[in-house]
Structures are given as C-alpha cells and as structure tokens.
C-alpha cells in the first residue's frame, strides 16, 4: 500500500511517500525549484517520490494532507472580523490565494496529480504529533509548538502504539512560535526563516535574568503560568491583522525601531535575543514538566517549528524529568508530509507501526554514470578515485590541509540540516575556518557558528552530552557544551558560550562519511569535522550535481567530491561566478 503525504501553502511545502508503513522518499519543494521555503504545491517533490519507486500516481492508495483548510480559513476570517477595519490590507492580499487555491485543495490535488482516490485531511498539530509514529517509543508524551496551525499554536497529549490523543491546546493568537518570530522580525531577520539566527545570536547577550533588562521587558509581553500555559498581550503585536509582526508599543518597550536588515548588530540586539531565548526555554521547560506530571511518561516527542530550537532541545533532559527525547529531522511544517502519511497508515487505517526513522537520507540520489555524463557533457575537468579508501584518504588529507570541500554523496537529506550527503566540510582545528566559511563560502553573518560532526562512539569524549546520547543529535537538533579542554583546539565550531550544535553519525547510517571523520581523526588527533549545509546564503541546499558544481564555482569551496569524482575549482575557471555579489543583490 502506497500513501503520499503532502504539505503546502504556508511554508516549506513537501511530499513524502510511504510503502506499507515504511518511508521510502521525502523531500521539500524548495530543493527542486531553488526557491527557499517554497510554499507552492509540491509537484516536483511528489514527482520525485513517485519516480524514486518507479510508480505512477495510479499506484497511490491514499493521500494525507497536513491540515484542515476550512478550519484554518475560519481562523483567518475570525482575525478579519475581530480586527476590522485594521485588517483591510491583509484581507485584500491574502483572499485571492485562499479562494483560488487553499480551500480548493482537493481539486488542486486531483487536477495537478491526476489523482482519483481518497484524500484525508489531518489537523495540523496532529500531523506534527504524528512524528511519534516513526519515533523509537511505544508510548510517549507529545508536545507540539509552532507559529499556528488551524487554531492551535501549542498542544500536548499522549501517543501509544498506533494512537495519538492531543489533550490540551493553546489557541491563536497566543503563540510561542509567533513570539519568537516577532522578535526575529524586530531584530531585522526574516520570519519563518531566520529564527535560528536569533538562537545563534543569543549567547552573545547577557544570560543573567537579573542583569538582562530586556528579559524583564519581554516578560511583560507574555503571561506565563506555572503549568506552562501562556498568553500574549496582543497590544505588543500586529501579526493578527497586518503583514508585519511587532507593534509600535513593542518597539517602544524594547527601546528602538525595528533593526534594518544587514545593519550593525549591537549589544542591545544581543541582549534582546538572549532574553527571548531565556523566556522560550522557561516556557518550554514549564510546559514539559507539567506534561510529565500529567502523563507520567518518561519519553518525550517534540514537534512543530519550535522543535528546531536546538539550544533549548539540548537542555530538555537536564531541566525536565523526561528520560528520553525524540524529534524528527524536520520538526517544522516540512515534516508534516511525513506525519500526515504515517497518520493515515497507522492511525486512520489502523496498521501496526513497523518503522523507526533512523536517518534522514530520503531525498534524490544520482548514479555514478549520470554524474559522469554531467561532467563530460559540460567539459568539466575532474579525476576519478580508484576506490572508497583512496577517496576517504585524499579527502581527509585535503581537509587537514585546510581546504574547503563540497561533499556530494548518495541521497539528499530530508529537513533543514545537511547531514553529510550535501555538506561543506572543513577543518575545525583551523582558527580561520569560521571566518573563511562565513565570508568566502556562505556569505553570511560573522556571528553565526558552524556545526561539528563527530562519530557517535566519540561524542562523549568531546561533548558534555546527555547519556545515552539522544537520537536527535543524529539530525543536528541538539546543542551541547564542548568539553572545556577541547574548546581551544576546535575554535571554528566552538560558539561564544563554549557550545556546539553537534551532529553524531553512526557507521550504519553513512559508512563513507563515518570513515572520512575517522580518517581525519587519524591525521589531526581530533575526529571532528565542520559540517555546514552545501549552499550559499538565501539559497536552498543543493540537490543535483549541477547545483553542487554551480555553488562551488561561485564560492571559496576548493574541491567538490561528487560520488567518486574529484573536481578542483581552480581547474575549471571558465565556470567561475561571484556568489558574494549575488547574495548582496538578494
């Protein structure tokens, strides 16, 4: 039985394909259209899913859609009714897409895919919560926190075997996710995209609640109860009727206008980011402790866009009574296509669970032959490795010699993180690597740290992780302190507070990548690499050999290792271009 999961029209449209309860393929639309966070109907992602299994749409038995569009439309109309006449502008701009696309989703699915069978609609937070169905737990407390679904912004409940019961919720307009997004907008970053930058900025600010004046100020905006429930004072926000988020009152409270993008970040901005992160963690831990008291479960599944807050995730087991923690590689809206498909198979149709998501390699892959054809057709200069051993040895040596490597292997990762198949790799011991990668390769803000990747069997030697190491570290979704004695040895992946957003890798997940890290360890004495996503700022992670080659030729990446082929940038000067200029123009 094939089931297709679809999410679209808000952000990160995606598709996922299930066969008899096993996830075979999943991808976000942005990777194909090259438009970051693409929201449109994921026709390319669906086509990829079908193509990957050599099936047609006629083979699909059911489609699961990630929300109830009419319930969402009811909420949108309620916003307009409540906020009349302030919502005029957003009404005019948003209604055409609601009328033409969003409420006609069944028609769109049937028309675009030529699909004739059943479509199931699953509530948005249930589609998030359904990531429990691919977790390693038989029973777990489930928490979903995001911007907003239909009405729900935060929910919790219990998952047991095939069933999920979300017991309580907090509804729109109060939203922890939208609070985070509002401050993100206030700090001059893009909403639904750059929240992780605020998280990365927060350690630069004052993390003492008593000394950080903005902590007290932002606390005025949110009423937090002991059971973790909360309510936002909506006079500080305008997102419920406008296409912007912070109100003038919030700007006044925080002592200035919204920061202009790309303008200088000051200590005030750092302190605001720190205050927000502290408040987010305070609410999260209160919610989690309350849920533990209610459910008495020792396992926790977290889902929703806020599950991407890896700084808070890394503190969950220390600050709550839960013993085990899990979240899927894409806890945000992109992951709801997987959730919707699993919910249809396991819960609606009542089939037993038989799949645990152990890795995120669910995207397209390209054969050696197709890559060779691409290189030959485009007259690209390259050499070929004799075998994997030579490839690992050569690559490790290049990284050890402080070269920046584009690493393109096997199936593309699902979710926002590059996990070793579409990655840029570099030497973490090189003190200049962070600056080099930020300025010459990624063209991104100086304050942003890079992530370390380490083999799971070495992780506890170098990081103060929870024991046993939680599985979401495999998806780069947990931040932990780096052991103090090591921080100076790997400066490029050590954040200002001594932490690192590590990725752990097991041999069975990706033997080639695992072998490369170990080989680098033999040369440097430290089996850790810098792993950052293979893209430039503002672009989605590369998907095809063409994307990878193009990205390398426009940046400071020295070598591209694509399958068994080694391509040197210097040998292909005809294709060079200036990605720095491109990023500035975006």
């Amino acid at each position, binding site marked *: 039985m094939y089931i297709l999961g679809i999410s679209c029209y808000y952000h990160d449209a995606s598709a996922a394909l299930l066969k008899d309860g096993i996830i075979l393929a999943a991808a976000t639309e942005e990777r194909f259209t090259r438009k970051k966070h693409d929201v449109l109907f994921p026709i390319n992602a669906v086509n990829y899913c079908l193509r990957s299994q050599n099936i047609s749409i006629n083979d699909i038995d059911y489609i699961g859609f990630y929300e*109830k*569009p*009419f*319930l969402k439309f*009811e909420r949108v*109309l*309620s*916003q*307009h*009714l*409540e*906020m*009349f*006449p302030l919502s*005029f502008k957003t*009404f*005019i701009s948003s*209604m*055409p897409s609601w009328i033409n696309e969003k*409420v006609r*989703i*069944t028609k769109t699915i049937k028309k675009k895919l030529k699909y004739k069978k*059943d*479509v*199931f*609609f*699953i*509530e948005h*937070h*249930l589609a998030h919560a359904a990531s429990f169905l691919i977790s390693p737990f038989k029973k777990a407390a489930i928490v979903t926190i995001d911007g907003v679904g239909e009405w*729900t912004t935060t*929910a919790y*409940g219990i998952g047991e075997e095939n*069933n*999920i*019961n*979300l*017991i*309580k*919720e*907090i*509804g*729109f*307009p*109060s939203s922890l996710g939208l609070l985070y997004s509002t401050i993100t907008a206030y700090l001059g970053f893009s909403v639904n995209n750059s929240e992780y930058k605020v998280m990365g900025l927060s350690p630069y600010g004052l993390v003492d609640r008593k000394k950080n004046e903005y902590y007290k100020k932002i606390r005025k905006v949110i*009423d937090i*109860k002991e*059971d973790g*429930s*909360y*309510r936002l004072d*909506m006079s500080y926000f305008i997102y*419920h009727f406008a296409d912007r988020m912070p109100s003038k009152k919030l700007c006044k409270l925080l002592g200035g206008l919204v920061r202009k993008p790309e303008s200088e970040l000051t200590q005030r901005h750092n302190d605001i980011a720190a205050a927000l992160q502290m408040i987010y963690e305070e609410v999260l831990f209160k919610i989690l402790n309350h849920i533990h008291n209610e459910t008495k479960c020792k396992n926790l599944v977290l889902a929703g866009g806020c599950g991407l807050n890896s700084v808070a995730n890394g503190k969950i087991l220390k600050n709550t009574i839960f013993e085990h923690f899990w979240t899927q590689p894409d806890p945000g809206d992109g992951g709801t296509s997987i959730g919707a498909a699993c919910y*249809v198979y396991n*819960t*609606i149709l009542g089939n037993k669970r038989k799949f645990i998501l152990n890795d995120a390699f669910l995207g397209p892959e390209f054969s050696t032959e197709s890559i060779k054809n691409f290189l030959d057709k485009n007259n690209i200069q390259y050499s070929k490795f004799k075998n994997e051993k030579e490839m690992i040895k050569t690559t490790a040596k290049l990284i050890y010699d402080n070269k920046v490597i584009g690493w393109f292997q096997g199936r593309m990762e699902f979710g926002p993180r590059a996990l070793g198949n579409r990655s840029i790799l570099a030497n973490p011991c090189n003190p200049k690597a962070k600056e080099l990668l930020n300025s010459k390769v990624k063209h991104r803000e100086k304050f942003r740290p890079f992530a370390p990747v380490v083999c799971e069997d070495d992780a506890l030697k170098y990081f103060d992780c929870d024991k046993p190491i939680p599985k979401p570290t495999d998806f780069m979704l947990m931040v932990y302190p780096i052991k103090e004695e090591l921080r100076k040895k790997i400066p490029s992946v050590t954040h200002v507070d001594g932490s690192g957003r590590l990725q752990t890798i097991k041999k069975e997940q990706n033997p080639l990548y695992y072998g490369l890290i170990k080989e680098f360890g033999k040369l440097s004495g430290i089996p850790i690499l810098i792993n950052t996503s293979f893209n430039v700022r503002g672009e989605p992670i590369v998907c095809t050999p063409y994307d990878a080659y193009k990205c390398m030729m426009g940046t400071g990446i020295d070598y591209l290792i694509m399958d068994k082929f080694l391509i040197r940038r210097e040998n292909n000067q005809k294709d060079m271009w200036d990605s720095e200029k491109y990023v500035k123009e975006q």
Partner: protein
Amino acid sequence: MKKLKQFFNGFQKGVKSFGDNISTIINFILLSIVYLIGVGLTSITAKIFGKHFLDMKKKKNSYWVDLNLKNKSIKEYYRKF
C-alpha cells in the same frame, strides 16, 4: 518570420500583463466591497452584542484549553473542517 514571431510573443505577453492588471483591479474592487459590507457589518454587529472572534483579553489561572483530538471515524478525515 522571426520578427513576426517576436511580435506575437510580445503581443501575447502584453495581453497577459493587461489581463493580470485588470483582474487585480477587479479583485481589489470586489474584495473591498466584501470586506466593507460582509466583514465590516458582521464585525460591527458582533461587537455591539459583545461577541469576540479571538480570545485576546481574558486573564485566567491556566490558559490550557481542552482539545481531545484523537482517532475519529474515517468519515471525519474526508472533511476539510
């Protein structure tokens, strides 16, 4: 022949752009009417009777609200609401 093709391509683009502009204007006019009359009148009437569509002001001891979202009959999942 090439020039003729170019002309027709340009003409086609122009007509499409004109159509898009017209539909934007008509959309704006129709939606403005719907907003002012439909949304506006409903909103004002509701406010006179004290009805609120968003829960924004009430202070409570706990903001958790019962949801009880669990497995339902299969028919429920065919619905978009």
